[in-house]
């Protein structure tokens, strides 16, 4: 094995019951706000709380299926990947989440954040 395997550091942030079903709560970190979403099937996902389009707070959007619709201009973002749903293009950062019992933890060290800007077609670099 060439790669160096390090242990993932999980930070406990609360109980799944603190997040409304089909809703979201915010965790504040030094690197910016992280939005935690809970689906109808009790899955929990974490995304950087900024839409790739105009940095709208995704935590304030409407959650449906495994997606959230941004409250500012209705972009739809995949909770699992942070990817914008076509025909829009762009990606917001996502953070690994672990649910043990009712306890929710996130792995900030593993976060794939992408502060600011949308990468592709909209031309807004």
């Amino acid at each position, binding site marked *: 094995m060439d790669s160096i395997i390090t242990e993932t550091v999980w930070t406990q942030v609360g109980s799944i019951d603190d997040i409304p079903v089909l809703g979201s709560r915010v*965790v504040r*970190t030094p690197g910016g706000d992280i939005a935690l979403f809970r689906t109808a099937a009790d899955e929990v996902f974490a995304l950087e709380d900024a839409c790739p389009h105009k940095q709208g707070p995704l935590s*304030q959007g409407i959650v449906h299926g495994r997606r959230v619709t941004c409250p*500012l201009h209705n972009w739809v973002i995949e909770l699992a990947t942070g990817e914008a749903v076509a025909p829009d293009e762009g990606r917001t950062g996502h953070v690994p989440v672990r649910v043990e019992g009712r306890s929710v933890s996130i792995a900030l060290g593993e976060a*794939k954040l992408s502060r600011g800007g949308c990468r592709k077609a*909209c031309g807004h670099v």
Partner: protein
Amino acid sequence: MHLSSNNGPVVELNEAELRSAGPAKERLVVVGNGMAGMKTVEELLAKAPGRFDVTVFGAEPHPNYNRIMLSPVLAGEKTFDQIVLNSREWYDANGITLLTGEPVEGIDRAAKTVVSQSGRVVPYDKLLIATGSMPFIIPVPGSTLPGVIGFRDLADVDAMLAAAAKGGRAVVIGGGLLGLEAANGLRVKGMDVTVVHLMPTLMERQLDPSAGMLLQRELERRGIEVLTGADTAEIVGDEWVSAVRLKDGRELPADIVVMAVGIRPNMALGKAAGLDCGRGIRVDDQMRTSDPSIYAVGECVEHRGVTWGLVAPLFEMAKVLAHDLAGGEGAAYTGSVTSTKLKVTGVDVFSAGDFSGGEGTEDIVFRDAARGVYKRLVLKDGKLLGAVLYGDTKDGAWYFSLLKDGADVSAERDTMIFGQGFGGADAGDPNAAIAALPDSAEICGCNGVCKGTIVKAITEKGLTSLDEVKAHTKASASCGGCSGTVERLLAVTLGDGFTAAPKVKPMCKCTHHTHDAVRAAIVEHGLKTMAEVFQAMEWTTPDGCASCRPALNYYLLCAWPGEYRDDYQSRYINERAHANIQKDGTYSVVPRMWGGLTNAAELRAIADVVDKFNIPTVKVTGGQRIDLFGVKKEDLPAVWADLNAAGMVSGHAYAKGLRTVKTCVGSEWCRFGTQDSTGLGVKLERMTWGTWTPHKVKLAVSGCPRNCAEATIKDLGVVCIDSGYELHVGGNGGLHVRACDLLVRVATEEEVLEYTGAFMQLYREEARYLERTAPWVERVGLDHIKAALVDDPERRRALNARFLFSQTFSQDDPWAERAAKGVDRHEFNLLAEVG
């Protein structure tokens, strides 16, 4: 280790970092926010994103719209919203500075700046002039009288619609494309219309005399009078037009005159700046003017001695220019072969190329008088030179592609008049012709999209509808003339997988049912929760989407007052947080001021809140209330608590509900006031506040017909008169301004309140979610509303009773619940703070 589904780079630079890292961007200033200028910008963004800092000046107050679709707007087949090409959000998203309602007055070529009417000076590295054209007004006596209208922009359409609303007679001067579309629109809107045309037949530049005669007969069948060979001598009138006098002495009475005899390139700006001008601003094959820093595209230019007035050439110019600006080489605009189509519903007319005949040309003509079909093809040296089709235009695209390609048609000569695929195994199959087209065949002339591009998008991106093809390829996104062809292309490509668009749209992608069908089912089948609706109406998603859930939440709330439990997570953030989210994620709040009244204690409390929470902006709204901007979300409960303590409650400025009741001072102070308009406004607001409606609702009460509260552009407006009250409904002061319709005159305040409650309830029960009263009234018709409210007193009382019943459940102040009782506290607190 982790897996990422993303293929892009992991490290991202933000906007500021990119800007500081790279060289300064070139500044591109575009004068003209029309189709040619913005097409150039769109192409440029696609080819070289971020290369330019773009500033766009538009003389009109609107975002950029599809000018060629103004005729359907006039005819009432489309709304202005439907023809907007790029919304303001699009400009924002692409970092473009858009200055609307701001014509440019001059260019300083030495300093490389433009100056606008308002005195704004903007420097440029590259300047693009795309000022389009102006309608040509024949300088006969009376041509400047009020009531003489050109047909060029939305303001002209609004002027025509306003005139048509009063009925009467219209004279349209000019029997070309625009004139006939204007005539048809005004006729559809109920006016008596006469078309005055100088030439012997209509549309003589596009149609030969035979087709022109057929067209005239069809228009006359629709009740439009057509006078050909008619020369206008004078427009008659004192303060407003009253008639058009012809040179042969005939006088045609007219309440409006539409002048549509042609357009003139709008080159004033270029000329004043000393650019080389002829009939338009002269440009070379790269769209450069005589100043190498200045370009021009569209109807304002003269290229190789020719000026253009159709959309396809403008778009071809735009593509060449964008290529050039993006640093590409080798692109050149060499002129266009064009086709035209008349946008009059039910009249199929197509023409392309040159059909004037002449030496060495041969004509192939097909007539079927019984079917009203006429086709003429002009050939020269085995090639197609021109085509005129009337009554059956389905082969237009095929002929046009043969013509543009200069294809040798000798082999098809004998049968080509019968259309593509004639005599083959697939004869009679309307899709066969499409299937047989080569990939290079152009389907969308406006946007230059070929068959191959569309088929590729359909198969690779899994597109299944016309709307999706529009979104991904831009085909059919301009004039829409090729939408039938695109749908056939979908059918051919997808086979059984394609079903043509249904007439009425489903409410969202989660269902094939319409808003109306879902509402009806909720009441008929007693569906009382969202889950029951999903089950009974076979939703295709487990929990709906951001579009259907708020609608269903409202429909259930309206159908089962006091019984249905509001679904918090199906509301937009504004309604969840009871404040308006702003672009930076902060919120604004508006305390209610009944009827627009306030007092020192309330103002003092507001001032204290502003100081205490460092609120950066305080603004008076259009509805006479005070808006506090820039409040942090976590501060909202405390802000509300302080405002509540001073006796103020939520103004619902965020709600799809009653916003404000605007008033004037009326008889209490005003020397003209006939009734107590302020007092009535307070009563109306006390009765209607807190209600949930399909969209926001604004009321107003004016104390006299001077109408200081602007009551006749509100959802419901009361105008006080000596003998009582006039009730007006269905007005809107938004993007598409609509004046109210007069519903009824009543004598007492009690009647005003009863009518208001009944109107609100009818709107609540019948309109689709997010449909304001103006489009709702237009859709169902004023007669429908009068029948329910005016002609049927029993129904009016029942509606009002249902409204008042529903109000017993909704008049709780949401601020108090959250500030004092801690309702939904989680909404305003962080889950955790880490690191």
